[in-house]
């Protein structure tokens, strides 16, 4: 049985411990102690500093372990968080974030451990540095995990069930023109800004299809109004729930950059980085069906969908071993000082994951 007061108390304790990435190791150490106290059979901290805590099955003969994962770090400003518990929500005092992202999820997992009457073997993973690069989940030692399915708790509403995410590419493009005094020898110059403008004009941007978008995020070029700019650079991204489509868009973008450079006789340097790799978990898979059923038992209508961003589940699913969905925390306005968490929704999430582990027992 979920104990609301205990859940709130745990949550408030967790957010008071600062863990602004990458300074989240102290929090990981705290979590290791806490999970041991809650009965973890063993704990391991991998070389990157991620925490893995293993719990034996309880009142169950199941051998199939289930993964629950949250990240331990927060964004800034996250030092000196003072949670204010109101009737329905918990907020910060307004000068920091709350840290509900992702400590709401951790508190819910701890509450689940305390209240589940039975459960299969559990692996609780608290990752470091989800908010920065490289993410802890990217560096995680997956050989340490045995789970057959997993849950990352890191979204908003208790009805959220995220079963897919995009492939995303971040691309930095540097055009090299030729400087010249704009008023004296314009013939001798090649404007890198003109090349950049031509390229952007020829890109397909915004929403390309239901699952695909492209964006020019940053442009920068030139030194002074009377100099034909030698350098101009842009940062663009494209993402698609369909990995193949994302690669096609990337290829098309690169063609546009190369053609623009060629048209003006400028140099071009393109650097791409794979920011996210797409995953998609079938709706009829066990991890999704168990979740939908548990939500139903708790009076929640599931909202099964893909998301356009990344979470730790992106990295876990990339390993191809542990199909992992993302559930909501019950918080809102993450990454801002207006962040808050809805107490009833936290209770709902704790109930849902408790039902999940009891059903899997």
């Amino acid at each position, binding site marked *: 049985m979920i104990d609301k007061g205990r859940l709130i108390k745990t949550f408030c304790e967790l957010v008071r411990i600062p863990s602004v990435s990458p300074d989240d190791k102290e929090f990981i150490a705290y979590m290791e102690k806490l999970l041991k106290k809650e009965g973890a059979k063993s704990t391991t901290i991998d070389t990157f500093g991620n925490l893995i805590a293993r719990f034996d099955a309880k009142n169950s003969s199941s051998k199939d372990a289930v993964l629950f994962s949250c990240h331990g770090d927060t964004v800034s400003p996250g030092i000196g968080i003072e949670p204010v518990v109101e009737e329905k929500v918990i907020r910060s005092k307004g000068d920091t974030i709350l840290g509900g992202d992702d400590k709401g999820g951790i508190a819910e997992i701890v509450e689940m451990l305390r209240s589940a009457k039975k459960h299969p073997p559990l692996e609780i993973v608290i990752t470091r540095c989800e908010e920065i690069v490289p993410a802890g989940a990217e560096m995680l030692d997956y050989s340490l995990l045995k789970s057959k399915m997993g849950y990352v708790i890191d979204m908003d509403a208790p009805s959220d069930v995220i079963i897919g995410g995009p492939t995303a590419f971040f691309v930095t493009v540097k055009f090299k023109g030729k400087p010249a005094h704009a*008023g004296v020898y314009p013939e001798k110059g090649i404007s890198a800004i003109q090349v950049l*403008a031509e390229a952007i004009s020829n890109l397909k941007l915004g929403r390309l299809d239901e699952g695909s978008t492209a964006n020019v995020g940053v442009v920068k070029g030139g030194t002074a*109004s009377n100099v034909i*700019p030698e350098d101009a650079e842009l940062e663009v991204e494209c993402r698609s729930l369909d990995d193949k489509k994302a690669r096609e868009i990337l290829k098309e973008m690169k063609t546009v950059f190369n053609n623009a450079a060629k048209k003006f006789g400028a140099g071009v340097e393109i650097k791409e980085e794979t920011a996210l790799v797409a995953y998609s978990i079938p709706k009829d898979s066990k991890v999704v069906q168990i979740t939908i059923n548990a939500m139903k038992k708790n009076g929640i209508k599931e909202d099964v969908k893909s998301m356009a961003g990344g979470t730790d589940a992106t990295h876990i699913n990339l390993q191809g071993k542990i199909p992992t969905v993302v559930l909501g925390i019950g918080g809102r306005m993450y990454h801002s000082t207006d962040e808050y968490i809805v107490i009833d929704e936290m209770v709902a999430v704790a109930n849902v994951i408790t039902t999940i582990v009891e059903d899997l027992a």
Partner: protein
Amino acid sequence: MDSKRLVNTFCELVRIPSESPNDKEFISYMDNLLKKEGAKTVKDDFGNLIAKFPAKNSTSKTPIAFACHGDTVKPGIGIDPVVENGVVKSKGDTILGADDKTGIAEFLEAIKCAKKHPPVEFIVTRCEELGTVGSVKLDYSLIESKMAYVLDEEVVGDVIIGAPTKFAIRVEYTGQAAHASEPESGNSAVIPAAKAISRLRLGRLDQRTTANVGTIEGGEVVNGIPGKAKIVAECRSLDHDKAVAVAKEMEKIFKDAADEFKVKVDVRSEMSYHAFLLPENSDVVKSAVDALNKNGVKAKTTVITGGFDANNFNAHGIPTAVMATGCRDIHTKDEYAVIKEMEIMANTIIYMLESRA
């Protein structure tokens, strides 16, 4: 003409710091100095100095004006001039300030040495390096001369008879920032900026006209739809009307792109200076060419693409040519003055003064 005195005067002048806009102390120094040389002086509201020398051994009532700017670029504090091998340079940690104090020293030497001259007006402007600000704000009602020479620029012999009108155009687009994965919630400010630039005519538009986009800046992160984009552009033409037309054309393209992409735009187009083009056979040009040719250097008339105080003098109806003063590598710590050229210019000015007596 006393070369040693000329160089000493110059060294004294550059030791007084006058980085624009902190050039008022130097103007006061010049005020005292010019009074000592026999001029009556007045400062206009902006602080430009106008010194009037009465005619000397001459009945001429037709004044002639010379002008220099008193300010320098940075780093111009603590200048310690070093005289060696026929040049004056700084110690290397500052500019020299030859731009434009060679001109001032040459005029001072000339007015001291000229045996006769008509009424002479000498104008020391402020803040030329900030975009000819002093001569834009100059009170032209205080000036009686019908022709003038701005003593500025590098290689002695150069007579600048034309310069363009220039417009500086600043554009700021404001769209709506959003996460890149939610294009429906945002509106990129960079897209209209890029579209507009791709539609501009840039580079050399015709023999007398150029246009350029100097800088662009927009957005903060790769996965954010940029809410702001800023562009700095310019156009210039020796034909004033043409410059105006090109500036208008650019403004329209910037504004149309904003309409097309439904973003806000702020376009500020400002004329930095006004074009002038003096006929080769005009009195002001011929006098300068003749004086230089008679004093040991082949005069070369030229049209340039930058702006001077002369642009503003001409715009106020005073035909004004620019005569170079003998400096090099201006606006750098390597700046130096060529003493031989300074002597030629001092003699040239003496010749010009005496021939108009």
